[in-house]
């Protein structure tokens, strides 16, 4: 089975985000004065084959910790769903 993992990586709340701060200031100068905070992050889509959803989950978590995320500054979350079968005409 193929699973699609949607991974979102963001800076930890304790880490200042210069990009997010700049975007927030842009919002303020546009008149969106109620924007309190903006945090920027990364989105990644990984397709993996695994015997079960649990196995895919384990693999995805491992890949996040080992490669995709720098735990010193970043945190992550992900969603997993089974890949929809492509229709063959």
């Amino acid at each position, binding site marked *: 089975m193929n699973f699609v993992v949607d991974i979102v990586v963001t800076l930890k709340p304790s880490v200042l985000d210069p990009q997010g701060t700049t975007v927030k200031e842009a919002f303020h100068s546009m008149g969106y004065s109620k924007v309190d905070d903006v945090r920027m992050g990364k989105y990644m889509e990984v397709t993996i084959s695994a015997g079960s959803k649990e196995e895919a989950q384990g693999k995805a978590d491992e890949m996040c910790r080992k490669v995709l995320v720098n735990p010193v*500054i970043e945190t992550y979350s992900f969603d997993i769903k089974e890949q929809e079968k492509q229709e063959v005409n």
Partner: protein
Amino acid sequence: MLRFGVVVFPGSNCDHDCYYAIKHFVSDKVEFIWHKSDKINELDCIVLPGGFSYGDYLRTGAIARFSPVIEQVKRFARQGKLVIGICNGFQILLESGLLPGAMLRNRSLRFVCKYVSLKAVNTSIPFTCEISKNDILKIPVAHGEGNYYIDPQGFEELKKNNQIVFRYCDAQGNIDDASNPNGSVYNIAGICSKEGNVLGMMPHPERCCDARLGSLDGLAVFQSILKSLTLSH
């Protein structure tokens, strides 16, 4: 004759500058090491040069740390031998866990390319032994992600172990926010490992070893390496 190796990753672009500076002003014995090497020759010092290894994909230095040569660099460092990472080389040392902390985007969001002043606050390690404590060096930086970050606990460790080596300052040596080019914690420009044999620094000493380039202050770092290696031989 002391032997230097300069690692070349795909995307390194200061490798030849390092090679030039070492060859002409430090030691005749310098070689390039391709990042796929899983074996390295007998060396006394390894340089991880600046640039954009793997196009800075994912995070700066994040992919380079999986190059086979990094295992060799780690082994080399464990033996107490000297490893210096400059700019992207520093970022690779952080990602590979040889030094603590991480790099964030510059506070200004701009790529900063200019001469800065650095205060040498730790001159007891092999990379700074020829520099007087609190001397001010004029060395250029060129980076988009030099905003060094470490959590408060890690920062206390750095201070306790005297691992902070260079701090950004103004020309008079005042360490303040205005002289910090990227927003790094505590104006940190360079740190070393607990043992002092691994140094990471954002400024480029190899770019100011030749009088024709405007400053000779980078030479102090290489001369320190030379002296400490000569003494230990």
